[in-house]
């Protein structure tokens, strides 16, 4: 088994810098885990609420180490056929049609149905060979000629049975295809698994992985993200928007807005040429941030409070300035 080609980061600071170059703001905790994953060759299990940058982390990781990103999106009922490989039935079918005569030859002279079936079975390795295999993400990561980053996204949506299977793949990076034999990885991929915590992952899987919990970002970080991703935003607007979003997250909401919503909102407000949060503007665009009627109402309350506070603050500042002038 050939191990991961080279150690792509030489320090934690380098992780932070290279991620920033790809427009991903990572705090020291995230950077440490990424650094460890690449130097110890261990998978990362990233947990946390939706929209905090779990998927993006894997994408940016692939970009920074210049590897192909192979993504396996999980869902309920995902099985090995969809994750590992499938036989290309259509192609097999086509071949059987074209080779009808040949098949008749093989089956010809059989005295019973049973015997005909036996004869076909003897030849089935023709149809179950490389030629007819359709590799899915896991097999692609295993057979890739160059190192890859494998993203197993939203693993909590898959069934526990699938998780058990995945664990086997992750432990030795080899799979046995009954019809073809054992396939071994040429390069151990850098693996990122993400989970929105719909259910808890098994201890066995967790044991294998480094664990990273990403929470909503601090105000300072979120501001950085907004400025990076929506550079045309007016500085005052950016600051107010982040400040307001951070307060909204403290409310008792059905769905708490994530970074994606902050960014969507920032873009919407930029389109409207906003330079600061104003009552009407916010009311018109709040549905970019919140999806539920009840949540929107709660946020509107919060907004009134926010705006009136800002007003008194501004007045305070103005009178201070007046005083300075008088001196």
């Amino acid at each position, binding site marked *: 088994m050939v191990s991961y080609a080279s150690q792509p980061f030489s320090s934690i600071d380098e992780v932070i810098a290279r991620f920033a170059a790809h427009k991903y703001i990572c705090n020291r905790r995230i950077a*440490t*885990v990424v650094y460890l994953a690449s130097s110890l060759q261990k998978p990362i299990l990233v947990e946390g609420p939706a929209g905090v940058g779990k998927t993006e982390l894997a994408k940016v990781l692939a970009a920074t180490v210049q590897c192909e990103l192979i993504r396996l999106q999980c869902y309920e009922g995902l099985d090995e056929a969809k994750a590992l490989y499938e036989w290309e039935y259509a192609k097999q079918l086509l071949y059987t049609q074209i080779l009808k005569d040949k098949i008749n030859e093989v089956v010809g002279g059989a005295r019973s149905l049973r015997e005909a079936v036996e004869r076909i079975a003897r030849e089935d390795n023709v149809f179950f060979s490389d030629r007819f295999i359709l590799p899915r993400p896991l097999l692609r990561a295993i057979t890739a000629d160059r190192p890859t980053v494998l993203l197993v996204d939203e693993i909590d949506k898959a069934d526990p*049975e699938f998780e058990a299977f995945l664990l086997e793949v992750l432990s030795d990076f080899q799979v046995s295809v*009954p*019809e073809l034999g054992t396939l071994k990885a040429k390069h151990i991929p850098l693996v990122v698994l993400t989970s929105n915590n719909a259910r808890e992952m098994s201890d066995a899987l967790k044991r294998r992985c480094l664990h990273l919990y990403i929470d909503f970002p601090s105000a300072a970080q979120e501001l950085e993200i907004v400025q990076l991703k929506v550079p045309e935003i007016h500085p005052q607007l950016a600051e107010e928007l982040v400040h307001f979003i951070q307060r909204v997250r403290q409310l008792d909401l059905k769905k708490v807005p994530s970074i994606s919503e902050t960014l969507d909102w920032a873009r919407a407000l930029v389109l409207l040429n906003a330079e600061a949060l104003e009552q009407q503007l916010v009311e018109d665009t709040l549905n970019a941030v919140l999806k539920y009627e009840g949540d929107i109402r709660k946020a509107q309350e919060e907004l009134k409070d926010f705006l009136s506070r800002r007003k008194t603050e501004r007045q305070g500042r103005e009178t201070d300035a007046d005083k300075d002038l008088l001196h």
Partner: protein
Amino acid sequence: MEQKILRFVELLRQNGVRVSLAEDLDSLQAVAAVGFSNPADFREALRATLVKRHIDEPTFDSLFNLYFRGLGGDLVEHLKATESALGFEDADLQNLIDALSQSVQELGVQLSELARQLLTADLGRLEQLLRQAARHVGLDAVERPFQEGRYAHMLAQHLGLSALAAELEELKKRLRGLIPSNDWEKVQKFIDLRLQDLTRAIKRLVRQELEKKEPTLRESERIDRLGEKSFYYLTEEEIRQMKEAVTKLAERLKNIVAVRKKRGKRGRFDIKDTLRKNLQYGGVPFRIEFDRRVKDKPQILVLCDVSDSVRNVSRFMLQFVYTLQDLYSRVRSFVFVSDLSEVTRLFEEQDIHAAIEQALSGQVVNVFAHSDFGRAFRIFHRDFLPAVNKKTTVIILGDARNNYNLPHEWTLKDIRQRAKQLIWLNPENRLTWGFGDSEMDRYLVYCDVVEECRNLNQLYRVIDRIVH
């Protein structure tokens, strides 16, 4: 350092964080990879390898601070408190410290080292002095809370606290004339407060050592609320927390099945079956047959004691039952005292508060009767045994206090034989099981899992153990 990390891991385990041996080794590797130059990186390396559940992070953080950060944080806090007690802002404190050193120099007084560090607020050096003293008196031998006072006293003696007090008194006398009278009060107060800070630091040091040894001391500060607040209304947060715990429990129950079945492997392509199924398409393989496994939902019967002897934890237990019932379709619930009655329908139809209220009201079973587990189990055995099969997990919540009635443990034996597993959660402290009218010893032999459980923390611990 390696030893120190391994001891820290041991501490995590004692405090309910599950760490396997493999993870021990991972943590050492990770620490080696990040090095020791930055304490924050060191902490994150340990966190990533040792803490795999988000709910364990507060435990990790507080233990990390206790174990690796030492007294530093506390010393800073004490100083801050003193600062605000003096009504100081910004540089006031530093100015006072500077002025004080100046005066001491002018007086030509040679202060003891301890007095000097205390008054100049050299916290690093101060911590060193405290640690030296701790080593000298063998503080790491402290085991129990009642020893706290004794060890604090020993430390104070070793540090020479009374000599220090005398020294500072003397200093105050001599400074009196030197310091301008409007500053004098603050200076005097500062010296007094710093002496208090030192005694606090000593106590804190002993306490920290003790907390390392006694997970229960810390636990009492933790999220114990659910059980204790039994007669209050449940808050949204408590409801949410219980949902989370129950979901995890159900996952565990399900995962056991998944792990056992894992060996079943990938459904292999079955050529004979495929041909047979595809005869209708003229023998051309349209539908490929794999042998598929059936998905499991947790199938649970839960029996909950609502008698007077468990009244302090009834709400916790019923909340557990209700949540289980609420989240999963194949759950049936029963409550019992001496009678036993099914409450599945009641729990399905009512909101959580109404359901719990009614279960405890005496309308479902007589809650004022004397507990009779034997009788209740016999009723269950008579009326519901057919509902128990190889897929059923049976969970019993109760204290097994049977008022000296017949225990009829054979009923459990029968239930156990038919069920997938039998779990008993007892809210009583394990130390008291089997004493007085407790029949726990008789019952537990028929259970697969028996755990002490009267709050969420313990419930999580149960969940952890179920895998073994």
